[in-house]
């Protein structure tokens, strides 16, 4: 099969879009990646009369959150997910029920044509969407201060440690941070977050998933990419392809088969035993 191709991140400054790039990437590549800033989306949180409908079951959590900044950021991130998904599903965002799996991964209840992942740090928020399989995203400040020694002992495989050992410290820090975001993205794609031991899997310099001993760990069903965003963030994405060659059409309106629906709603045939 073709190696998975991860879409480049698109900046979407407000709920009104533009969304056509997301739909195009989803149709052509099978996945899409969106980023924006909290400050760009905040006005929508403050002014929408439909916030309660848009947050759905998350409304309670929103109301319970005392710290105003945390509360608004939470709402902005949920709006970003819902509007992004709504663009893909061609349905109003308030119709979507954002639910959470046991490990915490968000998903759209009842609409498994799309999987999604969210990450935010500082002012930036990012959402990944996929129609081919699991997806995970992670965004970190590119200038994040890292205790290299600590990070290395906690998350690098022996092979990764060896590969980074000879590099100048600055480059080592850049590469380590990239590995960190890749590992976050992959474990979020699996819905496991930090429960997945980060020393138990690794990445090659070209971004391929490897076992700790350096052997290739997949057969091409995963794609990974890292992008600089807004000059000061690093955004990594992990995209899975189950290989089912799913339909490019992800809209809600067309998802239920008309033949089955019409047969289900036909009055019972009196002859049927």
């Amino acid at each position: 099969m073709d190696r998975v191709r991860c879409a480049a991140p698109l900046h979407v400054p407000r709920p009104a879009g533009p969304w056509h790039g997301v739909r195009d990437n989803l149709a052509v590549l099978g996945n899409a990646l969106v980023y924006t800033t909290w400050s760009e989306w905040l006005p929508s949180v403050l002014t929408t009369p439909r916030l309660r409908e848009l947050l759905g079951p998350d409304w309670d959590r929103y109301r319970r959150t005392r710290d105003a900044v945390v509360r608004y950021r939470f709402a902005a991130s949920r709006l970003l997910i819902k509007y992004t998904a709504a663009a893909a599903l061609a349905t109003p965002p308030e119709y979507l029920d954002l639910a959470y799996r046991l490990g915490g991964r968000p998903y759209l209840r009842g609409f498994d044509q799309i999987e999604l992942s969210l990450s935010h740090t500082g002012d930036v928020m990012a959402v990944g969407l996929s129609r081919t399989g699991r997806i995970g995203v992670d965004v970190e400040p590119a200038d994040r201060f890292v205790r290299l020694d600590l990070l290395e002992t906690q998350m690098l495989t022996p092979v990764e440690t060896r590969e980074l050992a000879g590099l100048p410290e600055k480059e080592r820090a850049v590469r380590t941070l990239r590995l960190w975001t890749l590992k976050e993205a992959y474990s979020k794609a699996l819905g496991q977050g930090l429960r997945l031991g980060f020393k138990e899997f690794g990445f090659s310099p070209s971004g391929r998933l490897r076992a700790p001993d350096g052997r290739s760990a997949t057969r091409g069903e995963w794609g990974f990419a890292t992008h600089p965003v807004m000059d000061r963030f690093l955004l990594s994405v992990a995209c899975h392809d189950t290989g089912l060659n799913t339909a490019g059409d992800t809209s809600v309106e067309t998802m239920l088969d008309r033949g089955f629906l019409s047969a289900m709603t036909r009055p019972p045939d009196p002859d049927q035993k």
Partner: protein
Amino acid sequence: MTAVVPAAGRAAQERPGVLDAGEPERAARLEEALGDPFDPANPHGHQALLRADDDREVPEATEALLARAGLAAEFVPHDLGGRLTDLEQLARVLRPLFRRDLALGYGFGITSLFAASAVWTAGDPRQQRTLADVLLGGGRVSIVHREVAHANAILRNELTAVRTPDGGFLLNGRKDAVINAARTDTFVAYARTSPEDGPGSHSVLLLGPEPPRSGEVRRLARAETPGMRGAHFSGLELADVPVRDSALVGEVGDGVSLALRSFQISHCLIPGTVLAGVDSVLRQAVRAATENRPDGRPARRGQRALAGVFADLLACDAMAVTGLRALSLVPQDAYLLAAAVKYTMPDLLREDLEELATVLGARGYDRGPLYGGFQKLGRDLPVAGLGHSGTAVCQAVLVPQLSTLARTTWFRSDEPPADLFRPGAPLPAFDHRRLAHFGTEDLLTATLIAAADRLDAQRSHGPLHDTLASIARMFVDELRILRARCTALSASGSTAFDPQACALADRYALVLAAAACLGVWEGQAGGDSFLARPAWAVLALSRIGRRLGAPVPETPPEVDQEVLAEVLQRCREGRSLDLYATQLAG
């Protein structure tokens, strides 16, 4: 057919309150013949099966063994000379296979049953005889699906059939990925016979096994799927292939309805068999978690995942087996439950695999016999469930009925027969012809409501009992919310649907899963077995409740501990991690 077919085989297990007639002897024989999966020298063990998967080859030695065992007869109804009497038994007979390799289970066979089901359901005696002879003779039958909405590679494109002056049909068209298309001459095709979309758009036609009088049946290139790499999918193209009128199964225009009737079998059988693959991976995870641990107990970090996944497997089994039993006991009312089983469980099992990744750690990337099955199952499972196309088929069944269910059924219907919830208890013979796809009897909500009442009436039977009562009540509350929301949906009657109904159908299916667990738990009452005690049901229901986003009460720590103790003990004793606790080879 006789009314009751007792499971031949080992002596019934002596468990008080439990009516399990015992593992069917042929399941036990198959498990024994397939042998220790972890033995690298076993030609049917994980090592050999993984190698075949690596090479994209059918595991020939194992297929030969299955052929010698006459496994295909399991897919043929008893009155046609086969061994198919009820679907619960069939699932048990197939689990030894699915514990080792999903692709083998699909490729050898189970897909032959999916194909043949339309003929067992509505075929005439001659058509049934033809298919029975093909299968009993060691052959296969392939299903050629019609194209459904949001189709993936397996469901995309379709055949069309045009009436010919002699009363027959002329078939044309192609499919991209038909399992075993290159390994059979017998096809059950859902072909378009009307250009209009609607309930009568398609008809079922039986093609083969004799070569066509003219035209051409072309096998196209092998479709190399990333999952089930060893199974043989290939393209199929028909060019002006004539079939006689006698190839028509049922009436013209019956195709969609026949799919709705016969798919109930696969809807229950798929979860009821593929869970055995997750059973194997859970055992591998237990091995990984207990290896080199002095006390044989996993570190705290892995305990929760092991107990949780085991509880999910029991929940999956409870729902699948209830569905499989419903097909024998109440076939006219089983279709909603069947759709809910298929809708909910493949996804839940995939989530479980990912949770086990945290326990397996680096071993999860190993390709050897001990742990290699994990990556393979991770690839195979999405193909088995067919992803979004598969769930959308189930949603198309559930969504149109929600409004009517809410208005006329929930909180009004009577409890189903208690035998529905007794895994292993004898069943009346399954009769394909009685499958229906109308009616609004959902079977399980009445059980949920009544079980919650019974639990409430028995409060103070112990803290776990009380927790179970609270969780059961929570699901009844959820059903009440669903009733209000679904009553507000516009009544069915056209192909338009409210997008919000899709999320409601998801929640309804989870409520049915909880109801099945409660039913099976109550069905064990009177015993003191692990399944009769409340711990597993508390854990299974609390995980289902959390998936609903419902306010699940905190579960006491002894719940995890008791479920963990059972999974560790079963692994030590080599018993399966499903409702039956079957003795395993190796």
